[in-house]
């Protein structure tokens, strides 16, 4: 197993974080090609796709976690994309189970996924008109207080 060789196949930084964990940081444009190479390299399972909202840097970090069944290594592929009009390319053709993760990405972060026909369809939420809820600038406490009334607590109930 030559994880070190990953450097030659992938444009981006590869760092062996610890045993069984590899961090790979790539550019937005290289996500699909990097994942493609990784799949050829043996990372045949897609564990999850998600995003992190780095609001101070005005960026989203899209995270793909892959698993190599043969080498027993988890690769975490990260790419930063701008927070304004975020868009990524779909990887559904590479990993069929990416579909719903990408749908979730659109729903929860507002990141558009090009090439995913379901992107933008409601998945977990129904009738949602506010900001995508997992964004840092969406204040769920405020939303919950405004929309769902709470029980007024009587004091000194004994």
């Amino acid at each position: 197993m030559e994880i070190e060789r990953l450097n030659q196949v992938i444009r981006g930084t590869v760092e062996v974080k610890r045993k069984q964990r590899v961090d790979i940081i790539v550019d937005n444009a290289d996500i699909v090609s990097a994942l493609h190479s990784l799949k050829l390299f043996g990372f045949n399972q897609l564990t999850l796709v998600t995003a992190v909202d780095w609001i101070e840097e005005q960026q989203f970090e899209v995270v793909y976690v892959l698993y190599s069944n043969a080498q027993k290594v988890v690769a975490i592929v990260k790419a930063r994309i701008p927070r304004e009009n975020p868009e990524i390319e779909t990887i559904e053709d590479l990993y069929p189970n990416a579909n719903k993760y990408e749908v979730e990405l659109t729903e929860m972060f507002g990141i558009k996924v090009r090439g995913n026909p379901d992107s933008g369809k409601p998945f977990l939420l129904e009738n949602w008109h506010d900001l995508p809820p997992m964004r840092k600038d969406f204040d769920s406490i405020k939303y919950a207080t405004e929309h769902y009334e709470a029980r007024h607590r009587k004091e000194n109930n004994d």
Partner: protein
Amino acid sequence: MTKEYELNIGPNHPGIPGNFSLHLELEGDTIVKANGDSGYLHRAFGKLMEHRLYLQNVALIPRICVIEPDINEAVYAMAIEELMGVKIPERAKYIRTIILEAARVNAYLFGLGIFAAATLGLYTLMQWAVGDRDYMIDLFASLTGARIYHMFIWPGGVRRDLPPKFEEDILDWVKFIKDKLPDYDAVFFKNSMFLHRTKGLATITKEEALSMGVTGPNLKATGVAQDVRKDEPYAAYPYLDFEIPTMTEGDAWARTIIRRLELELSLNLIEQAVKKMPKGPVWTKMPNPFKWYVPRGDAYARVESSGGEYGFYFVSDGGAKPYRVYVRGASMPHMYPLAEKLLIGQKLSDAPQILGSLNICPPEIDR
């Protein structure tokens, strides 16, 4: 018989494992299209955790998956321990293993019982299995103080040491379940009617399973011995002697039998762990909860749940609260796209079996 129906199954439908629904398009009795509809249990744990201190989250996270809450606690603790570079005491590792395996047995007993009742109409197994599971729940209550949401595994180890006589009690329970297993086998697992209904049903191949990110018993049923307990051992698994059961058929029957075998394996693991458990402390001191900062960084912690690989992708910005947590439930790929694909071309009456055999846990999808 080519009349086309559209049929919504669920969310309040006994054939559906939990609160979610299926939108089916039928031609006669045959499913031509299946769409899952999730979100009935969506609580946005990722967001809720961002509001809470690290210790407060210990109370929150078991609620993600009610069938097997302890995996959440374990995986949460593991993620934080990795980021903080904390080593946990040996005894805590064993206690965690015992809890996780007992919870797994509970999940299997519950899941198989419900599977038998809610898909095949065999209520007897459910009545037995869920009833027998309750003794372990009582033991959990004596160990942790609560029946379902234990909030017992926390970063650094476990919350309390074992109560007196717990080792004997749990061994008694293991023996009790082992004695009951032949009955379960007789009435369900070796019942020709069950074989008849599940053999050859909804078969997946190894390649399909791998490409869709399928894990756990569903993958083991296709012949891949992938199990986090072996691949990336956590808690006390490195010290225990066990073999991952696999089957090659990949159908609903194999998936069910794998779970039956796993059940037995877990019972054996509990026995081993109880016998090997050393004395000593059970907790590495963690900071004061109000000033508990976790160093900046990210970690992906994973464990083997009863459904498959269960993980937290955990990001900390160095503050007192998690910055972002993504919960990777094992059921997500099992439902989307696996179940949606498997249902196509099947009879309506088999839909509950297929869903049941995949052991889909809706709260894991909705979170």
